[in-house]
């Protein structure tokens, strides 16, 4: 292409000055040539441009399948300190392609039985002869097994990697985190609630950070499991919560569940007692009744006297006490000895409307707003809320709520009286503290501190005291509705009581008496020690400094307690 183009088109027209047709033909030929050349040049230019573009911006042949960033197949779940609670890793999968087998099938079946004894030789042999294309032999195989299978050298046995969900802390907080099915879809807990966020490509690079603290969770789980074993309980639940932000720092339900193999757990183990289970929690409700009465003005002081006979008959039902007074007693004494009769009278004075109003504002009549799908519907007297019901609700019977409700209620009562929705996500810039609404007055909240501390220092919850940490709280032992001989024991505690920061709720389902408890199985004997041990462990982690010199002002309540009742 030695530049003849201009000569053909325009140069030396005198040489082309021929006559007639010939000239016309030539002109036409020129035009055609011109057109063809333009097309040719155009194509060349296009190719050159493309090559240049590729040279500058394009990929080269040696480029690998680009792994440019580390985005997991499914987002991580972290605890509040950044420790991973759920991660997706590449796991080995052993598969069988019966049609690609070349070795002796019987031999291979024998070798497979030796390596993976969950099926016998006959089963493996049948699979190989089935004529199907593919079988999973083992998902999430251990590296040692993969190595052994690889050593068989059989092309019909495939070793692949596929993303797999791993819960490094195994059963820790299993009911909060939840678990996924084989295909990686969340089916319980946070995995289910935030399934979309965890699975979507755009959002899964950001982990979901929970408010759970693994260390606190571990302490709670360990102590609770020990108690559950000691007292042969069928289940247990525990919650630790920050009362000012509503963050759940630990939430456990026993028996334990291993989310790595959730399918192998029993339905009992998969059941989340802390949120899905609703229980009549008994005397732990009494502080609410007293606080309601104080807020409404029916109780003016802790010295207000109520007539406490040995038993009280209302509407065909008899209310009894474990420590009957048989005399007039003050509000402080009622709370200290956990008197049903006294509390029933306080609740009666309060009236149904106000009681229901308070319970509604505390969220006790609705499902908890926490970020889990497993939430139980609370049970209340509903339309049939008369005198007997308001009396029994006053001391925690005839109303069934989850332990989480109870923890939220105590948080409301002691954070100055403001209800805040509990949350499982860490409170931070992306997730501000939930907006609350006032339930109790600040004054009531303040006065209740001394009353609950009294229960622990002088009353039924003595064993819950953790020296130096100023624990206050209330025991509760309720008979099960279907079998009165079985108990649900619970303890709701707050610490440090002079400046409340954390609430702890612990519950044991059907504990039995032991020799150490002299056969007693009420809350003061089995749940209260769990609270004491757990608080001694977790309070230093939470930054609560033990101080034996500090106490809430007990003088406000102690003067209303008759001394001869001291044991």
């Amino acid at each position, binding site marked *: 292409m*030695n*530049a003849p183009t201009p000569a053909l088109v325009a140069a030396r027209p005198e040489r082309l000055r021929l006559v007639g047709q010939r000239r016309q033909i030539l002109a036409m030929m020129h035009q055609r040539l011109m057109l063809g050349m333009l097309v040719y040049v155009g194509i060349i230019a296009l190719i050159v441009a493309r090559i*240049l573009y590729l*040279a*500058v911006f*394009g990929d*080269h042949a*040696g*480029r*690998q399948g*680009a*792994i*440019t*960033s*580390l985005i997991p197949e499914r987002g991580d779940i972290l605890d509040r300190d950044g*420790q*991973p609670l759920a*991660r997706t*890793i590449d796991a080995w999968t052993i598969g069988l392609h019966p049609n690609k087998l070349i070795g002796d099938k019987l031999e291979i079946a024998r070798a497979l039985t030796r390596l993976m004894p969950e099926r016998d030789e006959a089963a493996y042999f049948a699979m190989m002869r089935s004529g199907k294309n593919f079988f999973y032999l083992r998902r999430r195989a251990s590296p040692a097994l993969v190595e052994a299978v690889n050593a068989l050298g059989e092309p019909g046995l495939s070793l692949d990697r596929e993303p797999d969900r*791993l819960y*490094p*802390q*195994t*059963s*820790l907080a299993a009911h909060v985190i939840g678990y996924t099915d084989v295909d990686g879809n969340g089916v319980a807990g946070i995995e289910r609630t935030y399934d979309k966020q965890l699975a979507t490509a755009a959002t899964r690079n950001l982990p979901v950070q929970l408010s759970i603290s*693994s*260390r606190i969770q*571990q302490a709670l*789980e*360990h102590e609770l499991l020990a108690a559950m074993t000691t007292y042969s309980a069928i289940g247990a639940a525990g919650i630790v919560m920050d009362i000012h932000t509503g963050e759940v720092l630990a939430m456990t339900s026993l028996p334990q569940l291993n989310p790595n193999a959730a399918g192998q757990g029993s339905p009992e183990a998969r059941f989340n007692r802390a949120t899905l289970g609703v229980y009549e929690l008994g005397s732990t409700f009494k502080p609410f009744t007293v606080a309601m009465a104080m807020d409404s003005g029916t109780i003016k002081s802790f010295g207000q006297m109520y007539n406490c006979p040995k038993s009280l008959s209302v509407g065909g039902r008899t209310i009894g006490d474990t420590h009957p007074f048989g005399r007039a007693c003050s509000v402080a004494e009622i709370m200290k000895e956990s008197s049903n009769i006294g509390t029933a009278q306080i609740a009666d004075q309060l009236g149904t409307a106000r009681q229901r109003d308070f319970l509604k504002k505390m969220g006790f009549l609705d499902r908890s707003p926490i970020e889990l799908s497993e939430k139980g519907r609370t049970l209340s007297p509903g339309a049939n809320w008369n005198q007997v019901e308001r009396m029994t609700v006053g001391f925690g019977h005839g109303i069934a709520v989850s332990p989480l409700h109870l923890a939220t209620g105590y948080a409301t009562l002691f954070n100055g009286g403001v209800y805040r929705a509990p949350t499982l996500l860490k409170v931070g810039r992306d997730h501000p503290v939930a907006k609350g609404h006032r339930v109790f007055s600040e004054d009531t909240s303040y006065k209740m501190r001394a009353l609950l501390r009294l229960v622990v220092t002088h009353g039924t919850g003595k064993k819950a005291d*953790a*020296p*130096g*940490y100023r624990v206050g709280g209330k025991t509760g032992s309720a008979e099960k509705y279907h079998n009165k001989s079985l108990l649900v024991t619970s303890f709701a505690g707050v610490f440090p009581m002079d400046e409340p920061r954390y609430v702890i709720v612990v519950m044991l389902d059907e504990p039995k008496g032991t020799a150490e408890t002299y056969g007693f199985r009420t809350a003061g004997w089995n749940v209260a020690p769990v609270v004491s*041990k757990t608080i*001694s*462990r977790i309070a*230093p982690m939470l930054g609560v*400094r*033990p*101080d*034996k010199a500090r106490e809430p002002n007990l003088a406000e309540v102690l003067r209303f307690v008759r001394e001869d009742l001291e044991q």
Partner: protein
Amino acid sequence: MSGSSFRSVFMVASCAGAALGCYLVSLRVASERAALEEVETEIVMAQRDIRLLQTEIGTRGRLAQLERWNVKVLALSAPAADQFLEGGFALARLTRPAPQDQLEAPVVLAAAPADAPKPTVQGAPQRQADNGDEGVSARDLLNVASLRTSPPSNRVTANLTARPATTVTADLKPKAAPPRKLAANDLAAAKPARPAADPLAPLPTPAKPTTATAKESGKAR
């Protein structure tokens, strides 16, 4: 003639040269880019490995496992309320030299050899003047023995000048109890480093203050 006829050739050659140069530059850029990508990929792979190893370590060292080890082997428990200190002040209190009640305890100070005129000295320990009229100076004779009257253990503490010729007995009578005679040498053998720490009376012999402090603080902890 030659210049004009070769002009087009030059033109093409220079165009080709320029294009080649541009191409070489872009080739260079592309190869640099590829190398960079390779490094990036390596980084990502390393991060993936780190993540995998972290996961493995985390799984092996999970809290439940640590707890199990603690229950079976270490048996560590949460610190009690008394084990927390309020601050530097409380920490300093742990290392105070000795409780003051040793001063009030009945103290027998010294015993002398047979020819020495002063067998015993009663009262609080104080510096004896150097008389110099005897072969043995009072300083050499001064021995301190004290009794700690803290309730749980009536422990006799004695400090010796460590002169083998001197026979020293420390006799202590707390609250009219029957006198316990203790051969001080035996005592010294039994409890070698237990100096009477009396901050007011500088002892004639070096009392190893560092040992005392360490011991005291050890006990207080």
